[in-house]
């Protein structure tokens, strides 16, 4: 396997994670990743080995997402089914702090889904993919200041939309360490 394919293959798990968080449906996410990889392979000549291949793939995936996979085309009933399933199935109802976590996470998932696509992409590239502001600016081909304003708006929207569970979590966040020692 040549270096390009090698690096491309290594990027797939991260691309799947990003895609999944964008569309919140495993099979749609994998379609998105597949489109991204195909486009990457086809445009291989355009990637001159400069810069990070993974960043380049993030850019392709983000563009395909904006152009073809906007979540408002999807059936709202289908949204977040897997998350909810994971949360309800894999976590038994243990202690109150965990229940608060579950409520918080369910709300957060919904609130993220409601963010405008551009804000969601920036938020996820930074929070989930762990990229720097500068890397995201290059991927999205926007100034760093725009990255920051989108991130800031996304976070404030999340905070407002989650006011109820956020207050509850604020309490548990500061006291749960103490309470859990038993």
């Amino acid at each position: 396997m040549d270096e390009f394919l090698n690096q491309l293959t290594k990027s797939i798990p991260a691309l799947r994670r990003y895609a999944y968080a964008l569309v919140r449906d495993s099979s749609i996410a994998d379609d998105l990743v597949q489109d991204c990889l195909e486009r990457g392979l086809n445009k291989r000549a355009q990637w001159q080995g400069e810069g990070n291949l993974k960043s380049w793939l993030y850019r392709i995936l983000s563009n395909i997402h904006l152009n073809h996979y906007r979540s408002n085309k999807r059936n709202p009933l289908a949204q977040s089914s897997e998350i909810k399933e994971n949360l309800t199935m894999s976590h038994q109802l243990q202690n109150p702090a965990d229940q608060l976590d579950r409520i918080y996470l369910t709300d957060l998932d919904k609130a993220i889904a409601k963010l405008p696509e551009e804000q969601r992409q920036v938020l996820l590239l930074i929070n989930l993919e762990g990229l720097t502001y500068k890397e995201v600016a290059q991927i999205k081909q926007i100034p760093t200041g725009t990255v920051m304003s989108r991130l800031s708006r996304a976070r404030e929207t999340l905070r407002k939309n989650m006011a109820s569970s956020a207050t509850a979590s604020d309490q548990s966040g500061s006291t749960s360490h103490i309470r859990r020692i038993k």
Partner: protein
Amino acid sequence: MSKERFEGSELLHAYVDGELSPSENARVEQWLDTHPEDAKRVREWQRQNQGVQSLYADKADQEVPSHLIPGGRPQTSTTKPLIKSSALPRIAAAIIFLAIGSLGGWFGHDYLNLRNNDMPLRTVNDNALTSPAMEAHWVYTPEVKHPVEVTSDEQTHLAKWLSYRLEAPLTIPDLSNNGFQLMGGRLLPSSTGPAAQFMYENTEGRRVTVYLSRSDTDISLSSAREGEVAFQFKKNGSTRAFYWYDGPLGYAVIGDMEHNELSQIADNIYQQL
């Protein structure tokens, strides 16, 4: 660095995201000590970050489906080169569905007339279960490449997923006693919301499907009142179905086989559910 890179609240975001130098970090921490409102915002953003990780991060740890790997073998569940790989079979299925739906409607017509006198309401609802169950059986059992949406390799996921979508805990029946192995299952649309189909195959390649959908409220209430579950039978050509209602769900077992054999399978399933 002479020029400030971040200003105002930008500094707080940059702090949360680890974009600051150690000295800038220290300055922000000092600031937060004396500004509880900002400290609260920062804590909330940090919690959002953790939440995003908890929600989505483990997706990267999952095994990559082989059809996504360049040069990897294409898997049964997805065709290789098409951009809209998953849409085409669905569209094809929808067209076949329409065609068979009208056929099934015609068959159902006779059936309705037959039963109409004694239990009109019940008959209509029964039809709502068995017709789509048979249609789904006819559409998907001949499939060679895509008989199921999720294969038996992911049985646990399949059960969880379909339980969630049908809003009822589903057990995937084990039919190995009858010589049939689970191939997998799929989610289907129905008039009462999401429905599920499980498909089984024996060593001769014969296939049986189990179809579940939410029953109409009337039915589930009346059967709950009666406190009993009765198997019912329906035949269409060489295709036979046993079906019954239990709790919130209607069940149908469909196969192209003799009455006796299918009845044993239905019994076996009922024992397990």
